[in-house]
C-alpha cells in the first residue's frame, strides 16, 4: 500500500483523505500561478473563512526567525485546492471549520469568537482543540502542512518557503554522499 510509513507520516489527515482528483483535473490545476495577487478574490472560501484560516495557520506555522504559513500563502493554497484538487471535500472541510468555530466559541465564558480572543488565548484554544478534538485539529493541521510543503504550483509553499524550512531542495538530480553517514562510501 502506500505503506503505513507514508500514510502515518503524511502531513495530516486531510492530505491523505481528501480528493479524488483525476488526471485532467491535475493538469488544469498546474496552470495556477503561484503569484496570485494579494487582493484577488477567493475562489472558494468566504472572506470570513479566509480571515479565520489566516490566523489559525499562522499559529500552527508562525512567522518567527523564519517565514511561516502566511509568507508561504497557505490560505491561498487551501482556497485553490478546495476549488480544484480537493473539490470533492468542500463539504467535509466546511464541517471541519464549523466544528472548529463551535469548539472555540466555548473557550471563554462570554462565548467570544476565536478571532476575538487574544493571541495567547488563541494558542491555548488550539492546544485544547488538539487535546479534545484531535480529528478537527488533524484536519486543520493537515491541510496547513499540505499548503506549506506541496509543490508551489498549487499556490502554497510560496518561494519554496516550506521546503527551505525542512532542508528539501528540488534539484531532482543528486550524487552521493546523500547524507552524513554515507560520506566516504561513494
Amino acid at each position, binding site marked *: 500500500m502506500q505503506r503505513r510509513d507514508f500514510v502515518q*507520516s503524511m502531513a495530516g489527515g486531510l492530505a491523505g483523505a481528501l*480528493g479524488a482528483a483525476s488526471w485532467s483535473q491535475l493538469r488544469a490545476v498546474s496552470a495556477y500561478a503561484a503569484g496570485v495577487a494579494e487582493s484577488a478574490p477567493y475562489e472558494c472560501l468566504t472572506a470570513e473563512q479566509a480571515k479565520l484560516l489566516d490566523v489559525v495557520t499562522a499559529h500552527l506555522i508562525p512567522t518567527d526567525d523564519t517565514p511561516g504559513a502566511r509568507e508561504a500563502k497557505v490560505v491561498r493554497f487551501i482556497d485553490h485546492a478546495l476549488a480544484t484538487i480537493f473539490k470533492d471535500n468542500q463539504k467535509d472541510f466546511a464541517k471541519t471549520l464549523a466544528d472548529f468555530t463551535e469548539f472555540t466559541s466555548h473557550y471563554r465564558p462570554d462565548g467570544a469568537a476565536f478571532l476575538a480572543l487574544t493571541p495567547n488565548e488563541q494558542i491555548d484554544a488550539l492546544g485544547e482543540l488538539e487535546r479534545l478534538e484531535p480529528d478537527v485539529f488533524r484536519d486543520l*493541521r493537515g491541510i496547513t502542512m499540505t499548503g506549506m510543503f*506541496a*509543490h508551489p504550483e498549487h499556490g502554497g509553499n510560496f518561494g519554496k518557503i516550506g521546503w527551505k*524550512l525542512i532542508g528539501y531542495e528540488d534539484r531532482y538530480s543528486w550524487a552521493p554522499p546523500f547524507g552524513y553517514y554515507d560520506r566516504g*562510501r561513494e
Partner: protein
Amino acid sequence: MSGDPHHTHHRGEPVRLLPPMRTYAPTDEVDFVIVGSGAAGGVMARELSRNGFSVVVLEQGPFLTERDFSHDQFWGDLQPDKALTNNRKDQPGTSRKTDKDDAKISSWNNYGRVVGGGSVHFTANYWRFPELEFEQATRFGVPDDSTIADWPIRYADLEPYYTKVEWDIGVSGLAGNPFEPPRTKPFPLPPLPIKSEGVLLERGANKLGMHPWPAPMAILSHPYRGRSGCVACGICIGNACEVRAKSSSLVTMIPEAVASGRCEIRTLSYARKVETNASGRVTGVTYFDKNKKEVLQRAKAVVLSANGCETPKLLLMSATTAFPDGLANSSGQVGRNIMFNGSALRDGLFEHEINGWKGAVVSRVVWDTYEMPASLGLYGGGGFDFRCGYTPLNGGATWPGEPTWGSAWKKRARDYFTKSLSVYGHMSSLPTPNNRVDLDPKVKDAWGLPAPRLTFTGHPNDFKLGAWFGKRGEELLTAAGALSVAGEYGGPDGGGPHLLGTCRMGNDPRTSVVNADHRAHDVPNLFIVDGSNFVTSGRGQPTMTIQALAFRAADRITALAKAKAL
C-alpha cells in the same frame, strides 16, 4: 490525455513516442488477448508478440509517458486515487472481516491503472524467492486454518527466468548474498549507490550478527539498453520515473512489444467479460471502450494479467450456465487464498542528516530472517530494509512526545524530515480458505459492474510474526545508533498493492485454478499469469517473481501454441 500510444502532448505539442503500432479490428480473431499491461501483462505482450503471435492488450488506464510525469507529489500514488492508480470513486472496493459482517466501502485494493500497471510507480525491490518458498508445506507442515501448499514448480524451474528478468528489464545488485538462492549469472548492473539508511542498516545488522547486503533493485545504476541510469531525484516510491531508469513494463516490455509489429496496446479499455462458446472455450473478451461502449475483441486464446483482484473479479463476472460459479472456477478457488504480505515498522531518529529523500528508496537489505529458527514457533519469514519514505509532502512530520505545531515544532521540522528513517520488516502471509475476493452483491462501479469485495482476517501466526519483526526492527534501529525509536506496528496487511494468491497454481484441479503452465484447469485456451497464481506470498516483494513466472508462462504457452495444443 493520451490513450493514443503513438503520440502524447507536451505543452500542447504532439510528440511521437513509439514506432507506429499495429492495430487490429475487434472482429479480427487475434492469437491472444491479454488483459492488463503491468508487470506480468507487459512480459506476456512482449514475449508472445516477438514469438510471432498477434496480440491485443486491453488496459484500463491511459498510455502516459515520462513527458506526462511530474515531480509534483499530487501525481504520485502517495495520494490515493490520483493519476497512476485506480480511482476508488469510480471503482470502489468493499471489505469486511468475516462472512457475518456487512462489507463497507474500502480502499483495500490498490493497483496501477496506466500502461505498465503498478510497475510504473513501484519501489522496485526485486528479491528472488528463496528455494524453501516453493516447498513449505512439505518442509514445515500446514498450520491450522491455512491452505498453504507446495508450488507445482520449484526454484530451479524459475531460476532461468529470474535471470531473464534481471537482464531483460535491468536490475541492479550484487551477487553473493548468503541468503540468496543459487544464480546462474551475475546482475547486469552494479548496485545503486549506498545511502545513509543503508550505512545505518549495515551498522545495526553487523552488531546483531546479521548480514546486510546491497539491495537488488529494478532501477538502473547505469545507462542500459537505451535507458538512462538513475539520477537519484528522490521522487521515487509511488511516483513514475521521468528518466526511464525505473525498469517498469512501460519502458521495458511495452515498447518492445509494440516494436514487434504484432502487438496493439488498446488503452482505456476495461474488460468486463471473458466470452466462451458452447464447447467451453474462450472466444474473446468484451470490454468497455473509452466511451463506455461494449466491444468484443475476438481471440484464439486469452491471457489474464489483470492483477490478483481484477483477474478473479473478471472470472467471477464471466459466469455462464456452463460455468455457473464463474469461469475456470469448478474448484471454487477463484478469488480465494488472498495474501497481501505483512509489514512491521518502527521509526528511528538519528543524530545526523540521513536525507533519505534523495535517491532510490532502498540500498541495503537483510535477509537473515528469510527462514526463522524452528524454536520460535513462527511460520514464514521475511526481510528488512531501512528507508526514509519521506518526500517533501511529509515535511509536516512529527515525533511522538514532541511539539506538533508552533515555533517549537518549526525548530524541529528539519530534524524530523532529514534525520529520521523507518525500519521496514517485509513478511510472508499465510493463505486461509476464507480470505477471499468476490463480487459485492450491492455496490457497483461507474460502469455498473460489481465492486470487488474482500473478506479478510489475518492468520494468528502472521500477527505473531509481525510482533517479532517489529521487535527485531527496534533492535536494529537501536544497534544502528538511533537516539529515539517510535511506533509499534506489525502484522498482516489487510489490503494494498500486493494482491496475491487468488487463482492459485497447482496440479490438482480440485484445489487450484491453473496448472503449472498457467492454463486454467477448466478452459484449455485460457491462461492466467499474474500475482493471483502465487501459492505462497513470498518474503515480502512479489513483482520479481510475477515477472519470472510470466517469462516462463510465455515459453510454455508458445510451446503449446506451436504444437497446436491450445
